[in-house]
């Protein structure tokens, strides 16, 4: 999937300006940027929820899975039924393995209001996988989870991605999530949203650890980039 020369404004505020991005198949592309830099707008354009003012979207995928910031589950359906909703042909054993994979075993017959925030989000991730997507867009999906659970979910996502082996676009503002998941990390700057830098990590995801020297270096580099961007934007707004 390719975004070429995309412009998007909301009420005369330019969010995206001449934006280019290429998402390769069989790769996890992490989009890392400060809050409010237009990450969600970018993802919504990729999903086709909003249309760009100018610019094109090439090699658009038909089956797009989207994990939103909020769970967006139907309150009157159980976890099982919510997952089943997007692909009614899925067999009960397929559904059950998805439920087990996201750690919702024994909670499949509970309604969303009976689940914790983290469980609801895991349910929405299982739903996205049940859609058998060609590309999976994830908009800060682990935002509502605590650190340990978030790291567990990152591990689970890597496992699932290895089996499924398709394109994932993962939007986050957590550096650790980006360096554990991404084959490519796209660092964004804001006002308007643009690509500040692209970092490629060659270490396979399954072999990564936050204590690795290479990842520590990438981490330091990303922290410097983001803090520099923060200073610039503060200076700009001042």
């Amino acid at each position: 999937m390719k975004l070429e020369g995309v412009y998007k404004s909301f009420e005369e505020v330019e969010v995206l300006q001449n934006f280019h991005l290429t998402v390769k198949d069989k790769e996890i592309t992490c989009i890392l940027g400060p809050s409010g830099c237009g990450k969600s707008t970018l993802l919504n354009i990729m999903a086709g929820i909003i249309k760009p003012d100018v610019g094109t979207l090439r090699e658009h995928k038909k089956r797009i899975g989207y994990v939103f910031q909020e769970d967006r589950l139907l309150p009157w359906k159980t976890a099982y039924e919510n997952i089943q909703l997007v692909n009614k042909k899925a067999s009960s054993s397929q559904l059950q393995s998805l439920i087990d994979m996201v750690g919702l075993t024994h909670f499949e017959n509970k309604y969303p209001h009976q689940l914790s925030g983290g469980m609801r989000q895991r349910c929405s991730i299982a739903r996205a996988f049940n859609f058998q997507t060609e590309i999976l867009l994830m908009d800060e999906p682990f935002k509502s989870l605590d650190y340990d659970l978030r790291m567990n979910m990152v591990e689970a996502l890597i496992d699932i991605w290895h089996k499924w082996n398709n394109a994932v676009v993962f939007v986050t503002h957590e550096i650790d999530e980006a360096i554990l998941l991404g084959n490519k990390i796209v660092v964004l700057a804001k006002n308007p949203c643009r690509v500040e830098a692209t970092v490629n990590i060659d270490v396979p995801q399954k072999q990564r650890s936050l204590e690795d020297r290479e990842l520590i270096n990438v981490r330091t580099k990303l922290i410097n980039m983001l803090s520099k961007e923060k200073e610039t934007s503060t200076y700009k707004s001042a």
Partner: protein
Amino acid sequence: MKASILKNKAKKEKELLYTILSVMILLLLWKVASVIVDKEILIPSPESTFMEIIRIIQSPNFIVSVMNTLKRALIGFAIALAAGVSLGMVGGFYKPSYYLLRPLVLIIRAAPTMAIILLALIWLQSEKAPILVGFVVIFPVLYENVVQGIRNVDVKLVEMMDIYDIKKLDRLKDLYIPSIRSYLNSGMAAAMGLNLKIIIAAEVLSQPRMSMGTSFQIERVNLNTAGVFAWALITIMLAGILEQGLKIINKN
């Protein structure tokens, strides 16, 4: 858990106690008023009204009268529900249809009930006129509930369904109908009680053979105010039973 169940039970008992107390006070006030006025034809005493209720219930025509009225109420309700849900869906989904239907719904809602009863009497037989009146009064209530139910569907859920390419029929079944149901449940209970009252009012004027409205009129002509009071109490009880029945159906 156990403590909360006990607390809930205690709360319910307290509510029941207050309701009983309130009914006792009303009965007492009624008795006092009847003693002060001291004319059975103006305000009959609670005892004579109670005796009238027993007499009416034991009379051979009671069941037939109630069943006839009940039949009209249920037919009117079913027609209004079917029309309210189908037209409400059209109006909720397509703005132009909503604006096209709006003047009609506004006229129906604003027209005086008495005018509708009189027109229904001119147009229809006395047996059927009350059904039309009930329909006209409750249709706008149900229609508006359905429109609101569709309009207030969470846009984020619609967006989710767009992304996952959910078919129209599944959207209707999994998103719109459950959303409409929560709005319609409260509207239906109110409409059911209202429908019964309006149908009886129309029967008083249209005088179909053996009905609750006709029985009201007979008691009035005979200057039996206790009989009118008794029928009013029977109506209240019947409306209560219908509303509770509807609640049970909705729950399941």
